[in-house]
């Protein structure tokens, strides 16, 4: 939820800076978002390290090679990566002050993100049915925790995108609209980049 909070505060930067430029020239909001993403790198760093430590420790239950459906996950990964493209289109539309297109691209980005999350839910259900529960072994606990954390990040991103779309429709947004879209874009791209790493380490490199 802090993601929402960080984004939300684009207003207060104006409050105290009262219109003057900042000491560095970077906007407060953008700097805060970059710092937050820097912190997130360490969060995923810790989760990925845990997974890498435990990926081969399987005392019971199915092995990843028996249950991973690489083509399926590749397609959902492709969907997620394409959402970065639509996010960029949303940002440029917002910068050109084209509200209709901004809303359109935000919606498409959110739909692509939701598709990815849906794919993850489907995948988790399938794995569970094949005998890989959260508590089965060290691999399963760390796999579900890592990919689950990523999934929650995407979900929060989808909520932010749809909320932003609603806010723009209602014309209720405060502060610099193009910057808000860009900030959510930064978060969205970060989540995508993390997925590239997770997809490679978890699915593509055999345990």
């Amino acid at each position, binding site marked *: 939820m802090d993601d*929402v909070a960080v984004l939300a505060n684009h207003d207060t930067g104006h409050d105290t800076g*009262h219109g003057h430029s900042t000491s560095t020239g970077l906007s407060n909001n953008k700097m805060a978002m970059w710092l937050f993403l820097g912190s997130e790198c360490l969060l995923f760093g*810790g989760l990925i390290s845990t997974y890498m430590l435990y990926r081969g420790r399987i005392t019971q239950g199915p092995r990843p090679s028996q249950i991973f459906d690489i083509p399926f996950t590749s397609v959902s990964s492709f969907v997620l990566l394409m959402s970065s493209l639509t996010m960029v289109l949303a940002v440029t539309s917002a910068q050109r002050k084209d509200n209709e297109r901004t809303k359109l691209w935000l919606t498409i980005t959110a739909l692509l993100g939701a598709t990815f999350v849906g794919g993850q839910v489907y995948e988790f259900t399938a794995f569970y049915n094949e005998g890989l529960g959260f508590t089965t072994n060290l691999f399963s606990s*760390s796999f579900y925790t890592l990919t689950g954390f990523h999934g929650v990040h995407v979900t929060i991103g989808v909520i932010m995108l749809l909320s932003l779309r609603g806010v723009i429709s209602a014309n209720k947004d*405060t502060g610099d609209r193009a910057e808000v879209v860009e900030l959510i874009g930064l978060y969205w791209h970060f989540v995508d980049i993390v997925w590239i790493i997770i997809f490679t380490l978890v699915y593509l490199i055999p345990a």
Partner: protein
Amino acid sequence: MAIIERPAPTASILLRAPVTPSQSMGIVRRPVTSTGWKSWVFTVDHKKIGIMYGVFAMFFFIVGGVEALLIRLQLATPDGKILSADLYNQMFTMHATTMIFLFAMPMAAAFANYFLPLQLGARDVAFPRLNALGLWLLVAGGLILNASWFLGGAADGGWFMYSPNSGPVFSPSNGVDFWTLGVQIAGFGSLIGSINLIVTILNMRAPGMTLMKMPVFCWMILVVQFLLVFSLPVITVALVLLTFQRSFGATFFDVAQGADPLLWQHLFWIFGHPEVYVLILPAFGIISEVLPTFSRKPLFGYPFVVFSGASIGLVGFGVWSHHMFATGLGPISVAAFSIATMAIAIPTGVKIFNWTLTMWGGKIWYSTAMKFAIGLIVLFTIGGLSGVTHAVAPSDTQQTDTYYIVAHFHYVLFGGMVFGLFSGFYYWWPKVFGKMLNEKLGGWNFWLMVIGMNMTFGPMHILGLQGQPRRMYVWTEARAGEGLFNFGFWNRVSSLGSLILAIGVLLFLINVVHTTRKGKPAPLDPWDARTLEWITTSPPKEHNFDRIPVVHHLDDFFHRKYQEDATTGTMVQIATGEQLVRDEEANADAHIHLPSPSYWPIAIAIGVGTLGMGVVYGVPIMIVGVLIILGSSFGFVLEPSVADDIDYDPPMSGGQETKELAPLG
């Protein structure tokens, strides 16, 4: 830009109550009261938030102190009966947790919140509502941590909570659950606060204040916030793994499944060691302000102090495994971490030299603040030297888990950090509350704390080298040893010392009460200070500065008071602090914009606290928590930042920049 107030032309005219016109989510009016509890609970003013951080931290300093006294009371006699073994475990766990997460970090946050904007020449922090959110999350975390005492017993695994000892098998009570959730929530608050403060320092400096004209205190806080931003997520991961293990049956620390107990230790200390610098660097910053002021000399080698602080922070990320020398990491890791740890002594030593040389040749004024600062230099150096003995891995293997370690970190944390914070109390009290703390009581306060601290923690060196284990809850006369190295003798000395220390701290509290009741009003510039926080009234007005100062020098306030005489080369006073403050008041800005109070920070914190309790007490409570968080996050986001047109007087019409609100009433 919701509050716009008209500054009063002179200090004698009270400021009008700030006007808050904007509404939240189109339904609720924002909280506008400027008196009473609402003005504190919903405030976004960095000064009020700073004071609340301070009160919170002081309360938990007393709580943690009482826990420490109980520990010392238990060890004062052979076969102590005060605490059971189980309660003793809970006591030392909660003593450390409370002192670190609920006293030291919040107290540093109190100083940072209050003084950063003032020293930088800003009217508030970059994100005032996030600032409030950080505070309330800390309060939620502190309440959850301590609620465990009343809900089946506190955590008992030590503040490092090593697994698998902290797992459900060895710690069956809910104590560890409350501990992980409390620390997690307080950590979120800390993370939000650190992002906020970094942006504030980098972006909101007064015109002319380059980074190298910034007070050292601001520099040290900047380094600390970077440490927090990059170390807190790692403890977050560790805490999440432990919570999932305990609450949802995950296997992370289940050795039967082949889990690696060192995973927790690595994750914990990657956070835990930077945390050590998070605790000490603010104190270094405080005394880097105090020493020059009371030596009437600029800080010796300002860039060296700044960059050694930064390099302590940087190298501090690469030394965590020295906490794990006894775990069998292998000779290469041990050697690398051992050398890195010794390397940290270099920038730290640079600082000690700089502080000493700042005093060298100065006209030293032995105020209480200065005494505490000198106390820090001496006691921290002792702790630093015993720290170097830990860096030597073979010697550390002997010392691991003995009282020698306890002696070391209490010298650096109590002798270092706490003395720095007390120095800050005496130095800045007149600024915050407009009254001078009593210097005579301050002297007693200082000397009792010095004697008490050395009596308490000094003997622990001997006890540790004699082999008394760190978490031993009882000792017996029969096995206490002979003569000078008798366990019993030194344990008694230590317990007696802790009483003296407690009386010293009590004198501070008495001093606070005495000052609040009968204290003299403080002059505007009681210490002939050097930095910008003194160029405004004490306590500062809600908008901090009547006019945003333009900075030309390091120690700008000093250079406005003194100028170098070209012929003699000495500094000659050209103005008093009082004159400068009056001058600012006479030239006040016409329009001052302050952020508006808000309901949402505390609402989100309540939601997060509810979610945390839900992890222990079931999914329905979790859902309630998530709903509160979601709802109040939307409130937070949708709160208008700009006053409505109708709130302006005269009503706003496009393009005009300076408007004022209709007066309240």
